[in-house]
C-alpha cells in the first residue's frame, strides 16, 4: 500500500469512471446514474483514508508522488497532500457524491454526458488540490473550467449560455494573469538556482525582492479573487449559480469557490509575503465589503438561487478576511468557513434544487407555506439555513467566530464591520425562510408537493450530520488543518523577514507587522486603528 | 558545364513558372508547371540530390499534376476571364508586392544571410544518394517517416470523403 500511487489513483479514478460512463449507451439512464453513483461512492470511500492516514500532527506534504513531466522546463507531475488539501479533497469527493445523488432524477436530457462531466470535474478538482507543481496546477485549474462550463452551458436554465460564457471568461481572465506570474516565477527561479523547475516547494525557498512581489502577487490574487469570488469580481457567481443545474451549483459552491481561498493559502500568500503585507488591508476591506454587500444584495433577491449565491459572496468574504488576518485563529476560521460553506451552501443549493425539480421555479414569491405541505423538507431547510446563518452549535458558527476573532486580533474595525454580516445574514435568510416555508399556502400548485423521497433524505442525512458534528465537536477538523496552517503562517512570516532583510529598499515595519497575534498586554486597538 | 546547365535549367524554371501564373488557361498552366517541376528536378540532380530529383518527378510531375489535370478536365474549365478594374488593381498590387519581396530578399541577401557553418563530417554517401537518404530516413527520421504514412492515410480518406460528395437529397435541385 505504501507504494501505491494513491493520490494519482484518487485523481484519475473519477476520470476513468467518467470515460466509462461516457461510453455507455446514451439512453440507459438508469445504469448510467447507478454507475455514476457507485463510482462517486467508491471514490469517496477511497478518499476516506485522507481523514486518518494524513497524519494530523504532521505539517508537510505527505504521500508525495513525483514524476518528470516536461523535463526541459522542469515541470513535474508532483502530487502531495497535507491537512488543508486533504480536508478539501474530502469535501470534494463528498460533495460530488452528494451532487450526483441529488441529480438522479433532475437530469433528464443527456444524463450520460452529465454524469461523465461531473466525474471529470471531480478529477480536475482533486488534481488542483493535490498538485504541488505550478504548471500542473495551472493545467488542472484550467481543466476544471471545461466540465463546469459545459455543465452550466448545456444543462443550465434560461440564460445558461450567457452565464457559462461569463463564468468561463471571468475565470480565464484571472488565470491568464496567473500564468504570466507563474512563468515569471519560473524565470526567476532559473536565474536564482540555475535549475528550471515549477516545483512549489522550490518556490517556497525562492527569495523574491519585495519590490518584485507586488505585481506577481496581484496577478495570483486576481485569479484567486475571481474564483473566491471577491467583491467586486463576484458578478459571475450569481449568474452561474442561477443558471447552473443543481449538481453544478452544489459543486460550484462547495468546491470551486474554495479553489480561490485555497490558492491564496497555498500560493499567493506564502510566495509573496511582503506583497501580501502591503495588500492585505485592501484585500481585507474588499472582503469585508463583500461580506456586507453580499448579505445586503442577497436580502433583496427574488430568486432563491440568487439569494444563496449572494450569500456565498458573503460567506467567502469571511474566508478571505480570515486569511488576511494572518493569525492562527483567522486561518483556522477561514479554513473552517470554507468547509462549512461547502456543506451548508451545498445543502442549500440542493434544497433549492429539490423544490425546483418539483415546481420548476425558483422565485421566492412562488412559494410559501411549505411547512404545511412538506414538513421534513422544511425542517431540514431550517437546520441548513441556521447553519448558514452561523448559529452556535452548527458548523457555521465556528468558522465565523474564528474568522472574526482573528480579524479582531488584527484590527478591531475589521471585525466590527464584518460582524454586521452576522446580523445581515440572519436578515436575509430568515426573511427568505419566512416567505418560502412559513405562511399559508398561497399557490395551489404547492399543495401537491411531495415531501423528500428516501433518496433525498439519504442525500441530506450526511449533510445534517456534518452540520452538527462540525458545530459541536470541530476539534478533529481543526487538528487536521492546524499544523499545516501553522506552517503556512510560519513560512509566510519567515519569508517576509528573510526577504525584507535581503532587500534594503524595503521598509522594516512590513515584516514586524506580520508578527504573530498581539501579546496580551499589547493594544490591538492601536494596531488596528493604524489602518 | 554544370553551371551552364544550372543556368539553363534555372532559366527554364523561371520561364515556365512565370507562364504558370501568366497563362489564362489552367491546363496550359498545369503543363508549364509540370515542365517547371521537371526542370527543378534537373537542378536537384545538379545539386547532387538525385533521389530527390527523381522523386520530384514521380510525385509532382507524375502524380500531383495528373491530379490537377484531371480536376481541370473534370470541371471543364476554359480560359479564365480576367477583366475589370478590380482585377487590374489586384494584378498591380500583386506584382508590386512580389517585386518588393524580391527587392527585400535581395537586400537581405546582401547582409550575408546565406553563409553558415559547414558540417564537420560529410554524410556517408556510399551506395549513392538514395542509399544515404535511406540510411538517414530509416534511422534518425524513422518516426517522422512513419508519421507521414499516417498523414497520407488521413489525406487519402479525406480526399475520398470530400470528392465523393454527399448523395443529393431527393427533391432538391442541384
Amino acid at each position, binding site marked *: 500500500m505504501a507504494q501505491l500511487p494513491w493520490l494519482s489513483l484518487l485523481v484519475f479514478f473519477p476520470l476513468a469512471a467518467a470515460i466509462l460512463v461516457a461510453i455507455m449507451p446514451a439512453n440507459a439512464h438508469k445504469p448510467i446514474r447507478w454507475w455514476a453513483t457507485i463510482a462517486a461512492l467508491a471514490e469517496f470511500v477511497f478518499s476516506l483514508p485522507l481523514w486518518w492516514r494524513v497524519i494530523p500532527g504532521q505539517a508537510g506534504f505527505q504521500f508525495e508522488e513525483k514524476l518528470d513531466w516536461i523535463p526541459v522546463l522542469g515541470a513535474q507531475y508532483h502530487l502531495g497532500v497535507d491537512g488543508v488539501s486533504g480536508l478539501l479533497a474530502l469535501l470534494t469527493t463528498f460533495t460530488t457524491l452528494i451532487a450526483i445523488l441529488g441529480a438522479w432524477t433532475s437530469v433528464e436530457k443527456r444524463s450520460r454526458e452529465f454524469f461523465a462531466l461531473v466525474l471529470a470535474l471531480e478529477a480536475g478538482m482533486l488534481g488542483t488540490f493535490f498538485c504541488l507543481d505550478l504548471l500542473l496546477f495551472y493545467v488542472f485549474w484550467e481543466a476544471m473550467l471545461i466540465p463546469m462550463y459545459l455543465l452550466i452551458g448545456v444543462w443550465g436554465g434560461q440564460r445558461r449560455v450567457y452565464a457559462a460564457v*461569463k463564468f468561463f471568461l*471571468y475565470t480565464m481572465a484571472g488565470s491568464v494573469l496567473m500564468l504570466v506570474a507563474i512563468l515569471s516565477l519560473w524565470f526567476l527561479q532559473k536565474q536564482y538556482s540555475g535549475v528550471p523547475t515549477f516545483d512549489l516547494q522550490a518556490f517556497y525557498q525562492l527569495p523574491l525582492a519585495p519590490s518584485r512581489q507586488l505585481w506577481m502577487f496581484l496577478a495570483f490574487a486576481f485569479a484567486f479573487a475571481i474564483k473566491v469570488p471577491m467583491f*467586486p*469580481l*463576484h*458578478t*459571475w457567481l*450569481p449568474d452561474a449559480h442561477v443558471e447552473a443545474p443543481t449538481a453544478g451549483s452544489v459543486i460550484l459552491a462547495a468546491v470551486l469557490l474554495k479553489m480561490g481561498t485555497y490558492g491564496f493559502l497555498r500560493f499567493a500568500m506564502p510566495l509573496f509575503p511582503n506583497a501580501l503585507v502591503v495588500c492585505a488591508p485592501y484585500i481585507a476591506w474588499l472582503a469585508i465589503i463583500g461580506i456586507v*454587500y453580499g448579505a*445586503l*444584495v442577497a*436580502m*433583496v433577491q427574488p430568486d432563491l438561487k440568487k439569494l444563496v449565491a449572494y450569500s456565498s459572496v458573503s460567506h467567502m468574504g469571511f474566508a478571505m478576511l480570515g486569511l488576511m488576518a494572518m*493569525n*492562527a485563529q483567522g486561518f*483556522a*476560521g477561514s479554513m473552517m468557513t470554507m468547509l462549512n460553506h461547502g456543506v451548508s451552501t451545498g445543502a442549500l443549493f440542493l434544497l433549492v434544487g429539490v423544490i425546483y425539480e418539483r415546481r420548476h421555479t425558483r422565485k421566492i414569491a412562488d412559494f410559501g*407555506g411549505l411547512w404545511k405541505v412538506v414538513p421534513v423538507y422544511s425542517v431540514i431547510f431550517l437546520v441548513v439555513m*441556521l447553519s448558514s446563518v452561523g*448559529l*452556535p*452549535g452548527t458548523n457555521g*458558527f465556528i468558522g465565523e*467566530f*474564528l474568522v*472574526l*476573532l482573528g480579524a*479582531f*486580533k488584527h484590527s478591531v474595525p475589521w471585525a466590527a464591520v464584518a*460582524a*454586521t454580516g*452576522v*446580523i445581515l445574514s*440572519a436578515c436575509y435568510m*430568515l*426573511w427568505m425562510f*419566512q416567505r418560502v416555508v*412559513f*405562511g*399559508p399556502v398561497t399557490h395551489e400548485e404547492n399543495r401537491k408537493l411531495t415531501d423528500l423521497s428516501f433518496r433525498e433524505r439519504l442525500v441530506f442525512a450526511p449533510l445534517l450530520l456534518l452540520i452538527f458534528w462540525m458545530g*459541536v*465537536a*470541530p*476539534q478533529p477538523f*481543526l487538528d487536521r488543518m*492546524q499544523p499545516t496552517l501553522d506552517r503556512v503562517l510560519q513560512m509566510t512570516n519567515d519569508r517576509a523577514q528573510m526577504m525584507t532583510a535581503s532587500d534594503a529598499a524595503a521598509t522594516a515595519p512590513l515584516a514586524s507587522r506580520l508578527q504573530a*497575534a498581539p501579546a*496580551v498586554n499589547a493594544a*490591538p*486597538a492601536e494596531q488596528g486603528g493604524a489602518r | 558545364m554544370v553551371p551552364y546547365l544550372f543556368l539553363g535549367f534555372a532559366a527554364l524554371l523561371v520561364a515556365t513558372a512565370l507562364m504558370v501564373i501568366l497563362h489564362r488557361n489552367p491546363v496550359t498552366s498545369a503543363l508549364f508547371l509540370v515542365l517547371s517541376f521537371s526542370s527543378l528536378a534537373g537542378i536537384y540532380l545538379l545539386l547532387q540530390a538525385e533521389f530527390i530529383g527523381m522523386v520530384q518527378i514521380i510525385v509532382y510531375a507524375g502524380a500531383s499534376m495528373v491530379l490537377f489535370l484531371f480536376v481541370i478536365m473534370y470541371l471543364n474549365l476554359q480560359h479564365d476571364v480576367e477583366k475589370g478594374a478590380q482585377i487590374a488593381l*489586384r494584378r498591380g498590387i*500583386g506584382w508590386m*508586392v512580389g517585386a*518588393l*519581396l524580391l527587392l*527585400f*530578399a535581395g*537586400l*537581405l541577401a546582401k*547582409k550575408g544571410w546565406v553563409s553558415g557553418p559547414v558540417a564537420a563530417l560529410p554524410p556517408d554517401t556510399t551506395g549513392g544518394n538514395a542509399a544515404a537518404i535511406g540510411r538517414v530516413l530509416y534511422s534518425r527520421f524513422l518516426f517522422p517517416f512513419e508519421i507521414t504514412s499516417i498523414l497520407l492515410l488521413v489525406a487519402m480518406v479525406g480526399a475520398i470523403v470530400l470528392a465523393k460528395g454527399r448523395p443529393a437529397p431527393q427533391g432538391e435541385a442541384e
Partner: protein
Amino acid sequence: MNLPMLWIIPALPLAAVALNLLFGDRLGKRGTAFLACGAVGLAFAAAVRAVLTLAARSEEERQIVETAWTWFRVGDFSVDVSFLLDPLSAIMVLVVTGVGFLIHVYSTGYMAEDPSFRRFFLYLNLFMFAMLTLVLADNYLLMFVGWEGVGLCSYLLIGFWYEKQSATDAGKKAFIVNRIGDFGFLLGVMFLIAWTGSVNYERVFASAPHLFTAGGTIITLATLLMFVGATGKSAQIPLYVWLPDAMEGPTPVSALIHAATMVTAGVYMVVRSHVLFEMAPVTLEVIAIVGAATALMAATIGLVQNDIKRVLAYSTVSQLGYMFFACGVGAFGAGIFHVMTHAFFKALLFLGAGSVIYGMHHEQDMRKMGGLAGKMPVTHATMLIATIAIAGIPPFAGFWSKDEILAKAFATGHYGIFAAGLLGAVMTAFYMFRLYVLTFQGKPRFDENGGHAHAHAADAHGAHMTHDAHGHGAHDDHGHDHGHGGPVKESPWNMTVPLSVLAVLSVVGGWIGIGKPFIEGESWMGRWLEPVLGSGPHVHHLAVSTEFGLMGLSVAVAAFGIFMAFRAYLQSPSIATAMHERFGGLHRTLYHKYWVDEFYGAVAVNPVYQASMRLWRFWDEKVVDGIVNGVGYFLEGVSALLRLFQTGYVGTYALFITLGVLALFLHFLRS
C-alpha cells in the same frame, strides 16, 4: 454520589428533543406530553440535587465545574464545553427548571387541542436545553451557544403558528433584533479574548483586574458592547421592540421565554460579569439610565394597551428595566433577586392570562372581557396574587425585590433613577390593576353564551387569524372547535395547578431576600450569592429609618396606583374615557408605542432595503456587470473593425500574409 452530573441537566431536555424527533409520531399527545414534562421534571430534580450538593459545601468551595470536552482549540485559544454551578447559576437553574416544568405542565392543557402539539413540546424542550446551557455555561462562548439557542427557540415559538403572517414576522423580528444584540455581545467577548486570551469566566475575571485599568476605554467599550447584547436579549432600549410583538406566540411561550427565563438572560449575563462591569463605571451609569428609561417608557406604554398579553409584555420590559438599573447602581444581587421573583409572578401573570384567553376562547382584548372572577375562580385568585406581587405590596414577592432595588438606587445616590423607579412603580400598580379590573371585575362585556367569537375575530389574536382568513374550510386543521360555542369556564387542572404553585411562590418567593431592616446582617439571598458577587459595594449603609421610609413610600405609591386603577376602571369608567379624550395626542403616542417601530422602519429597515435594492440593481447589474459586459462590448466593437479585414476572399488573406512577410523582412533589414 459526589458527582453532581451537571451535564445531565441540559442533556435531559435535549434527549427529549431527540426522542420526540425520532419517535414523536408514535407517541401520541399523551406520550409527548409525558416525555416533555418528564424530561424537564427530571432536569428540575437533577438541578435540585446539584444545588443541594453545592449548598452542602463550604462557602469557599461553592463552585462546581464539569468539563465535557474541548469544543475547539486554535492556537493559544481554546474553548471547552464545560458547566459551572455556583450560587448564581444555581438560582437561575432552579428558576429555569422549576418554572419551566410548571409551564410545561400548563402547556399540556393549554395546547391540548393544537394539531402541532408535538412540535410545540419539541421546541419547548429545545428551549429548555438552550436556556440551561446558557445558565450553566462556564465560559462566554458556551453561554453564547445557549444565548443564540434561546433566540432560535424564541424565533420558532413566536412563529409557532407559522401560517399567520404576523406571527412569523414577529419571530423574525425577534431573531434579528436579538442578532443585533449578539453582534455587540460577540464583539465584547472578543475584546475579552484579545486581552485575556480566554473566555472562561474564572480566568477572565481573575486576569481582568491586572489587564484592564478600571474605567479605561477598553473595558468600557467591552462592557458596553456586552450590554448591547443584554439589551437585545432582555428587551431594553433601544432593542426592546421585539418583545411586545413576541406575544404572537402561544401564551405559555410568553410566560416561559418572554417573562420568566430567556429575557432575564441579559441580566444574568451582566450579573455574571459584574467583575468587569464594576470596573467600568461609565457602563454601569449607562446601564442604570437605560434600565430606568426602559422601565418608565414601557410602563407608560403599558398604561394604554388593550391586549392583555401586550400589557404584560410591556410590564415585562418595564420590570427588566428595573433589573438593569439595579445592576447599573451596583445592586447585582438585587437584580438577580428581582429576576427570580419576577419569574414567579410574571410567569403566573402570563399563565393566568393564558388561562383567561383559553377560557375566553382565544380572546385577548381586555375590553371584551370583564367579570371573570366568578367564572374562573382559581385563575382569578392566582392572578390577583400575582398582580399584588408585581404592584409591590408586602409581603408578596415583588415588594421585596423591587424595594431592594429602589433602596440600593437611593443608597448609591442615584436619586433621579430612584425617582424614575418610583414613578414606574405607580404606573405598574396602575396598569396591572387596570388589567385585573378590566378582566375580572365589572360586568362581562361579552356574550356569555359564547356567541362572541366571530363578531370581533378580526382584531382578535391567536390561532384564529388563520381560521378567519380561510373561513371555516380550513377549520379542521386546528382543533379549536371547543372555543366557539361553549360558555366561559375554568381551565382544566393541568393549567390551574401550575397557577396555584406559582401563586404560592409569588407570595413566599420574596421572603428569602428579606434583609436589613427586618433581620440582622445580610439577607439569606445575599449570603447565598456572596461567593459570586462578593460582599458588594455597600458603601452607603442606610439608616433603618430611611429604609422603612423608603418601604413606606413604595407601598404608598403602589397603593395609589391601585386606587387609581379601581377608580378609573371600576367605579367610574368615565374617568378613563375622559382622560383618553383629554390627552388624545399623548394617548395615541402611547398607544402606538411612541411610534418606535415606525421610526425604526423608516430609519433602519427601509433604507437598508432600498439601499440593498439599489446596490443590486445599480451597482451589481449596472456598474460591475456593466464593466464586465462593457469589456465584451468593447471587444465586439474592436472585432467589428477587425471584421472589415475579414473579406472572406482568400486573395485578401494571402495579401495580408505577404504584407506580414514584408514587414518581417523590413524588421530584419533594420536590425
